[in-house]
C-alpha cells in the first residue's frame, strides 16, 4: 500500500513539474487593453465616443493612418471619478507599435494635458505612423487624472513591412537633421560604458587583494589602520580628482557641442474649443429602466416629445461605445467594429415618426450579447447603479439630433 502511495506521490510530483514547465512555453500575446474589465459605469457615464472613423485597416511601415471622431463629456459625470479637469487624449495600443504623429482636439494640437468641460462635445483626431508590424487593436482613449484611462472603441489594424525600415526624421531648431529613433544612442552607450569602466576599475583595485576574511580578522584584532595604505589613499585621491575633473570637462564640451538647449516643456492646456451643437428639439424623459439579466437586454420606458418642426424617429442608442441600432431607421456605413455594433439591437414599441409637437411614451429595448461580452451587465454591481447613453433621432432628411439619457437602472433577475 505504501509503495502505491509513494508511486502516486512521485507521479503527481512529476505531473506537476511537467505542467509547470509546459505553462512556461504557453505565452499568448496580450493584444487587448482590458476595456471589458473597466467598470461599466465608467464607460457609460464619462466619455461617450461617437462618429469614429479609422482611416485604414491595413497600413505599411512609415505610412500614416488616423482615428477621428467626436466625444461627449457626460454632464452627469459620476462623483466617484475625478472631473476631467486634467485629461490627456491618448491612444490605446500595445506599446509604440505606432508613433503618435499628431493629436488634435477641436483643431488644436494637444501634446499635453487639457481641461475638458462637462456637458460639451469635442471633435478629435489622432494621426498615427506605423512602426512595428503585426495586427493591433487600436482604441481611442482619454486619460483622466484621478479617474484613470477611459477607453473608447477599438478596431483591428494590420501593419505590414519590417520594423527595420522605420525612421523618424526630424529637423531641430538648430538645423540638425536627425532620426529620433536612433538619435544620440552612441553617446548614451559611450558615456555609460566610460563611467561603468571607471567603476569596475575602482572595484578591481580593491578586489585584487584578500578581502573579507583576512580583513575581518585584522579589524577584530585591532589592526584596522593597517588595512589602508598610503598608496591606497593616493589612488583614491586620483579617482576623486579624476572624477571631478572629468565632470567639469565633459560639462564644458557638452555645452560647446549643444549651445542651445531648452527645458522640458510642460503645462495644462485650457480653452479647448468644443463643438457648438445645435440646440436639441427632442425632449426625452426616462420613466423607468430595467436590465433583464437572463435576456441580456435593457428596457427603458421613455416619454419623448418632439419640439421641432419635422417628424423624427429614434435610430440609435449608444452606451459605452456599444451601438444599438434600429435597422429600419439607421444602417451603419462607417465600418464600425462588428463586436460593438448591434445592427438590429434596438427595438422601439412604436417607432413611427413623432410628429412636431407630439408626445408619446414608448418602450425601448436594447438587446445584444454585447451586454455580456463587454461586461456592461456588471453595472448592477457598481457603486452607483445608473446607466447613461446617447440617443440619436433622425428626421426624414437624415438630419440627426443627439440627446443624453441618464437614469437609475433596476436589475431584473427573473
Amino acid at each position: 500500500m505504501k509503495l502505491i502511495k509513494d508511486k502516486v506521490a512521485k507521479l503527481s510530483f512529476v505531473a506537476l513539474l511537467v505542467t509547470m514547465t509546459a505553462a512556461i512555453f504557453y505565452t499568448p500575446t496580450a493584444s487587448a487593453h482590458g476595456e471589458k474589465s473597466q467598470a461599466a459605469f465608467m464607460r457609460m457615464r464619462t466619455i461617450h465616443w461617437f462618429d469614429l472613423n479609422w482611416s485604414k485597416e491595413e497600413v505599411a511601415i512609415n505610412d500614416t493612418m488616423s482615428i477621428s471622431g467626436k466625444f461627449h463629456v457626460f454632464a452627469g459625470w459620476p462623483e466617484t471619478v475625478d472631473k476631467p479637469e486634467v485629461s490627456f487624449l491618448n491612444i490605446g495600443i500595445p506599446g509604440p507599435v505606432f508613433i503618435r504623429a499628431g493629436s488634435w482636439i477641436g483643431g488644436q494640437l494637444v501634446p499635453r494635458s487639457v481641461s475638458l468641460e462637462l456637458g460639451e462635445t469635442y471633435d478629435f483626431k489622432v494621426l498615427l505612423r506605423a512602426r512595428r508590424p503585426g495586427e493591433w487593436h487600436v482604441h481611442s482613449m482619454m486619460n483622466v487624472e484621478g479617474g484613470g484611462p477611459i477607453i473608447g472603441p477599438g478596431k483591428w489594424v494590420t501593419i505590414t513591412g519590417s520594423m527595420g525600415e522605420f525612421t523618424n526624421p526630424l529637423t531641430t531648431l538648430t538645423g540638425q537633421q536627425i532620426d529620433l529613433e536612433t538619435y544620440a544612442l552612441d553617446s548614451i552607450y559611450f558615456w555609460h560604458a566610460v563611467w561603468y569602466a571607471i567603476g569596475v576599475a575602482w572595484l578591481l583595485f580593491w578586489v585584487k587583494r584578500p578581502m573579507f576574511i583576512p580583513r575581518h580578522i585584522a579589524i577584530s584584532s585591532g589592526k584596522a589602520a593597517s588595512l589602508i595604505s598610503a598608496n591606497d589613499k593616493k589612488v583614491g585621491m586620483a579617482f576623486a580628482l579624476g572624477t571631478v575633473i572629468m565632470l567639469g570637462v565633459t560639462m564644458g564640451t557638452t555645452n560647446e557641442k549643444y549651445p542651445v538647449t531648452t527645458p522640458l516643456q510642460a503645462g495644462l492646456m485650457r480653452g479647448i474649443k468644443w463643438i457648438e451643437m445645435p440646440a436639441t428639439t427632442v425632449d426625452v424623459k426616462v420613466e423607468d429602466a430595467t436590465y433583464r439579466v437572463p435576456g441580456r437586454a435593457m428596457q427603458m420606458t421613455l416619454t419623448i416629445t418632439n419640439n421641432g418642426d419635422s417628424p423624427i424617429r429614434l435610430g440609435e442608442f449608444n452606451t459605452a461605445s456599444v451601438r444599438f441600432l434600429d435597422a429600419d431607421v439607421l444602417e451603419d456605413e462607417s465600418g464600425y467594429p462588428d463586436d460593438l455594433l448591434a445592427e438590429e439591437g434596438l427595438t422601439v414599441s412604436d417607432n413611427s415618426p413623432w410628429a412636431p409637437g407630439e408626445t408619446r411614451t414608448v418602450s425601448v429595448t436594447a438587446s445584444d450579447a454585447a451586454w455580456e461580452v463587454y461586461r456592461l451587465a456588471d453595472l448592477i454591481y457598481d457603486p452607483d447603479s445608473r446607466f447613461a447613453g446617447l440617443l440619436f433621432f433622425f428626421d426624414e432628411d437624415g438630419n440627426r439630433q443627439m440627446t443624453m439619457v441618464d437614469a437609475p437602472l433596476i436589475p431584473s433577475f427573473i
Partner: protein
Amino acid sequence: MSASQSAVRSRAEAVKVSRTFDWMILFTLFFVILGGYHIHYMLTGGDWDFWADWKDRRLWVTVAPIVSITFPAAVQACLWWRYRLPVGATICVLGLLLGEWINRYMNFWGWTYFPVNFCFPSNLMPGAILLDTILLLGGSMTLTAVVGGLAWGLVFYPGNWPIIAPLHVPVEYNGMMFTLADLQGYHYVRTGTPEYIRMVEKGTLRTFGKDVAPVSAFFSGFVSIIIYFLWHFFGKWFAKTDFISDEDL
C-alpha cells in the same frame, strides 16, 4: 575531524580558501544588491529614471539622488565597518546599472520596443566614486555623510548632462516647440503613462530664472546627507552578528 580542528592544513590552503570565499561573497553580494537596489530604485525613482522626458532640471535632479543614496550608504557602512573596504557605493551602482541596462534593453526595448535613447537609466557612477573615495580618504562615516552626501546630489546632474543634453535640443513640431525628449514622450505611446503623470518643471523655484538645476542639486545634496545618515544605520544594523549566539560560533 572534530569541530575544534581547522578545515585547512596549511597557510597556502587557507589563503586559497579565503580567496574562494572572497569571490563567492562578492558574487553573491553583487547580485543580491543588484536585485534589492534595483527594485528599490524602480519603486522610488521609477519613471524619473525610466524616461528621457522625465529627466528635467528640477524634480529628477532632486528626487533621483535622494532615493538612490540609500543602498550605497548602507553597504558602505557594512563594508567599511567590518572590512575597511571603500567600495560599497561603487559596487551598489555597478549592480544597479547592470540590472537597469538588462531591464531597459531586454524589456523596454526587446519586449515593448521603446527606443533605448528614450528609456536609458541615469548615470550614478560619479557620485559613487566620490562617496567611496571620500570614505577612504576621510575614514569617517560622518564626513562621508556630510561631504559625500552633498557631493552625491551635486554631481548627479553634471554626470548626466553629456547623456541628456542632445535630447534637450529644441524642435518645432506642428506649430509648437518641444525638446526632443518631449517629442519622444509624445511619439512613443505609453498607454499607462499619460502626460499629466509626468512630474517635471513643477515647484516654486521661479526666482532663479533658468538656473534652477544647481539649486535643485544643492537641495538634493542636503537631503541626501540626511538619507545617508539614516541608511548607514540600517547598514550597520544589518552587519551586526548579534543574530547569532556565541554557542553557534
